[in-house]
Every structure is written in structure tokens, then in C-alpha cells.
């Protein structure tokens, strides 16, 4: 299959031209953008598609029965099929458009949690969750009297699965875990964990914010009840996200937001709600952003998620090797098969200073708690520096990262 492989291999020079931000200058250099875990840059295909839509196809959806509106509706609604097939969902109507992963999780915490979770019930999350997958559950527990249980994380950054099994019981109502850790890069065995949770009778939410941009997702195989992610982290626009939910479950849930477009009948005595996914999409949805997200999916699919995964694996290996050669660097998160996220600490250089020094060299990384304070506590560090990679990064950028870290180490001696 040599021919195929050649076609599918990434032509990095061409790919980089697709992403205009990658050519932005920082001082004398182009920026080395190593913060795709926070947000990914957008290819021209996405930027231009939104421009085209806003310029020639824009109208509101569901309400306008003139042609412009019907076509906009058709484009908008068919996005559900595009997304469903991208993540292996069976039906477009299992795709709820939201404003982001955070909103998707809140929607489940409210629409499912508030409705079905009671005092004494248990919700299981983990030590490596993003605040988006912690705070909504803290709030739910506070309001309902449910109890939060936390899967511990091993030193390498993996779930302690036997501890997980022990946490499960008849009281476990929901297990909400990340697919890929935004700090450690760990790829969790969500399929297996999901099966375990199901056999205890719990529902499962998988936070795919860091997974969907970087690997082939198959929610039917994972068999989670919910799966969430954000557009902006997968090369699409800000302002849009997705909640996938099994349809029969969505049907039982309450809306988080109410208003126009999600109702059937309204009188001052009460309102009846539309079926999913409309029930969860009150008000004018992020129309242009859904179009942009679908353009991002088309772009990714054209390259191929396997190709992306492979390239990122190579970059990760290259970068890890470089960092391991700097004695002062301690890498946080060393699970086998991890995703292309390199978090590290250097005792003498606070992450905040590290970020500034690296920025001086045109290398953009993130320092801080990465919205994962409990994980920082777990590793007993106040903060960490994170380089998070995407397929558009290069080994040359990683060389620059490594040289800049060495410079910081030398400066702070």
C-alpha cells in the first residue's frame, strides 16, 4: 500500500501554509506555537468557510422558511451528521450543539444530574480532571447532597484502575472522566472504564476535549453515555462545542437553558419542551461556528486522523528525547502511549518565568495550573509548564523549545 501511504503522509510545508498564525513573527522568528492544548490554530479552510457562509449563505435557522433560511438550516442541521460520523455516533440527532465542552458538561450536570441524582448518590471523577469536569460536579453535590469520589492517579499519570473498581458501587450514579489529560497527556482506557461503570449501573460521561482533535474517536465503541468536546481545540472556531448523548438518555433530560426554539407550546401557565437535540438549544445557536466546525472536521478527515496521530506520536518522541536530555527538567506525565503533551517543571525556574523566557525566544507555551489545581496538588507542584503539540508543529520548533529551556536554566542557574 505504498501509494496510499505517500498520499496520506503529511506534507508539512503545505500543511503549515494552511495555518496563517504559524507564520506570525515573534521578534526575528516565526512563532513556535506549542499551546494547541489550550486552543488550536485554524486552517484557512475553516476561516474561509465561515467567511463564505457569512457572505453568501447567512440566515437564521429553523425559523426562516424562505430559501436562504432553508438552505442555512439544511447546512446547519446536516452538520449533525458530519459530526456524528466523525465520532462514530449512530444518529445526527444525538449531537447537541453547545458553546463549548464546559457548557456540554454543565448541561449534563444540570439536565441529567439535577434530575436524577439524589442525596447519598455518588459521582466518580478523577485526580486528573480539568476544572470543567470538576466544578460542575462539586456544585451538583453541594446542591443535591450527592458525594464526589475521586479516582487516584499513579506517579506516571495513569488511573489506578483497581482503586476505580473499588470506588464503584450501587450508589455510583455517574462516572465522568477525561479521555486525554490536558496536563499529563495520558490516554485513558475509556472503553474499559466505561464497561466497568456500566456494570455497576452508572452512566458515563467522557470529556473528549483533548482527544477529539488528536485521534480517531468512536463513541459507539467506547459506549459512553455522553461525550463532549470543543470546536476551538479541534481547529474550528471558538463559540461552539458538542454534547453527544445516547438518544434515549437525552430524551429523559431537562434543558439547561430555556427560551425560543426549544419549546413546543408556551402559555403563561407553562411550556412544553421540544424533543432532543432542539430541547437543549435555546435561542439562536452558533450557526456560523457550526459551519466552521464542520469545515475543520472535513479538513481533519482529508488528512486522516490516523495520519495525524502518527505524526504527533513522532513529534512527541522527538520532543521527549530532547527534554529528557536536560537534567534539570522533570517531565510530569509519563504514561505509555500518551498524547503529544509535554508538561514539565524545573526546580530553579518557576513556570511563569519559564513561559516569559521561552516567549522571548518566540516559543509559545503555557505555564500555570492548567485548570487542574487538584492535579497540581497531587504532584505537589504549584504549577507546571506545558508544551502541547499538534500535527502542524515541527522538529525544528521542538529544537527551539529545548534550546530556550536550556537558556532559562542557565539564566536562573
Amino acid at each position, binding site marked *: 500500500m505504498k501509494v496510499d501511504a505517500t498520499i496520506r503522509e503529511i506534507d508539512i510545508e503545505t500543511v503549515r501554509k494552511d495555518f496563517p498564525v504559524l507564520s506570525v513573527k515573534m521578534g526575528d522568528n516565526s512563532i513556535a506555537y506549542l499551546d494547541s492544548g489550550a486552543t488550536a490554530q485554524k486552517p484557512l479552510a475553516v476561516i474561509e468557510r465561515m467567511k463564505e457562509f457569512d457572505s453568501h449563505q447567512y440566515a437564521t435557522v429553523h425559523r426562516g422558511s424562505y430559501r436562504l433560511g432553508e438552505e442555512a438550516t439544511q447546512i446547519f442541521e446536516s452538520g449533525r451528521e458530519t459530526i456524528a460520523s466523525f465520532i462514530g455516533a449512530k444518529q445526527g440527532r444525538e449531537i447537541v450543539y453547545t458553546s463549548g465542552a464546559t457548557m456540554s458538561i454543565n448541561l449534563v450536570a444540570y439536565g441529567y444530574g439535577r434530575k436524577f441524582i439524589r442525596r447519598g448518590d455518588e459521582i466518580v471523577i478523577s485526580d486528573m480532571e480539568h476544572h470543567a469536569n470538576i466544578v460542575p460536579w462539586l456544585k451538583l453535590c453541594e446542591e443535591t447532597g450527592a458525594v464526589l469520589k475521586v479516582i487516584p492517579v499513579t506517579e506516571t499519570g495513569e488511573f489506578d484502575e483497581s482503586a476505580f473498581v473499588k470506588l464503584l458501587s450501587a450508589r455510583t450514579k455517574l462516572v465522568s472522566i477525561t479521555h486525554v489529560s490536558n496536563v499529563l497527556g495520558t490516554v485513558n482506557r475509556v472503553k474499559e472504564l466505561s464497561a466497568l461503570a456500566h456494570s455497576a449501573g452508572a452512566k458515563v460521561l467522557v470529556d473528549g476535549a483533548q482527544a477529539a482533535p488528536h485521534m480517531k474517536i468512536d463513541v459507539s465503541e467506547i459506549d459512553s453515555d455522553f461525550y463532549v468536546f470543543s470546536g476551538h481545540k479541534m481547529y474550528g472556531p471558538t463559540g461552539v462545542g458538542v454534547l453527544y448523548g445516547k438518544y434515549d438518555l437525552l430524551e429523559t433530560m431537562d434543558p439547561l437553558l430555556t427560551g425560543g426554539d426549544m419549546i413546543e407550546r408556551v402559555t403563561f401557565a407553562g411550556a412544553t419542551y421540544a424533543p432532543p437535540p432542539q430541547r437543549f438549544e435555546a435561542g439562536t445557536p452558533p450557526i456560523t461556528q457550526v459551519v466552521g466546525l464542520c469545515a475543520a472536521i472535513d479538513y481533519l478527515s482529508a488528512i486522516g486522523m490516523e495520519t495525524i496521530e502518527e505524526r504527533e506520536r513522532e513529534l512527541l518522541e522527538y520532543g521527549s528525547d530532547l527534554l529528557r536530555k536536560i537534567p534539570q527538567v522533570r517531565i510530569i506525565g509519563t504514561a505509555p502511549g500518551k498524547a503529544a503533551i509535554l508538561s514539565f517543571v524545573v526546580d530553579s525556574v*518557576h513556570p511563569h*518565568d519559564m513561559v*516569559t523566557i521561552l516567549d522571548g525566544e518566540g516559543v509559545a507555551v503555557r505555564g500555570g495550573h492548567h485548570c487542574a489545581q487538584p492535579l497540581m496538588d497531587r504532584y505537589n507542584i504549584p504549577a507546571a509548564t506545558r508544551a502541547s503539540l499538534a500535527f502542524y508543529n515541527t522538529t525544528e520548533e521542538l529544537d527551539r523549545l529545548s534550546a530556550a529551556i536550556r537558556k532559562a536554566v542557565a539564566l*536562573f542557574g
Partner: protein
Amino acid sequence: MSYSSDLYQQVILDHNRKPRNFFAMEDSTHHCEGYNPLCGDKITVYLKVGNGGVIEDISFNGSGCAISKSSASMMTAFLKGKTIDTAKSVFESFHAMVTDDPGFDQAKSNLGKLAIFEGVREYPSRIKCATLSWHTLISAIDDKKEAQTE
């Protein structure tokens, strides 16, 4: 010269490496813990204020980046022996300097060596690092329990 070298000058690196007055004061008259939620910096400032509002002793401890640590260190060195009123007015100058307040005039200011932090204004996200110890100081003087960067 690279972008960041006007920030990390030798004096700052030196105070970071060997912070002055870096200890928890047992017999302080005022103290306060300051926290910067963005980067997790945590600093406690201790004061011993005597007659006439004179700062007889001042110290700090905690953890933070080089900018917040060196700023705290230089602040304590600068303020020891000065009065509370002076401290407040120095804070105002310092704040005006790093936030690039149009009314701020370096030449006329009372900042002395602290003027080395002028470069911070080019790094908006680091301004809070430089001012954390100062905000904490003011809160300590005002007997607040906790301080935070704006």
C-alpha cells in the same frame, strides 16, 4: 538582546536566588497572605510597626515566580525603617509605574532601586506578579485577612 532580558536583569535574578528578609516573623504586628489565582503564587507579608507608624521590621515568605519573589524581596529591603505612610505612597508610585499610568513620572518618583521593575509594564500578565507583595502589604497594614491581585 532578546525580548525577555530587560525583564530578568541581574538584580532581579539575584533577589530571586537570595531573597532578603525571607522568613516568617513570629512577633509581627500585622501580617497577611496574598494569592494570585492565575499562577498560584502565594506570599505572606509580615510587619512589625512601632511608634509613629515606623516599620521596624518587615519580612515575607511563600512561593512564587522570580518576579513576585524579587519584588517582595526588594520591597522589604526598601521599606524597612520607613513609615507606613511612606509605604503607601511608594506603593502608589510603584503601581503607577508598572501599569504605565500616564500620570507617572519616573524622575519625580520616590522609587529608587525599585524602578528596575519598570520593564514589567511590557508584560501585562506579569504585572500582577510584581504587585502581589505590594497588595499584600497594603492589606496587612489594613488588617485584612487575605489579599488578592485585582
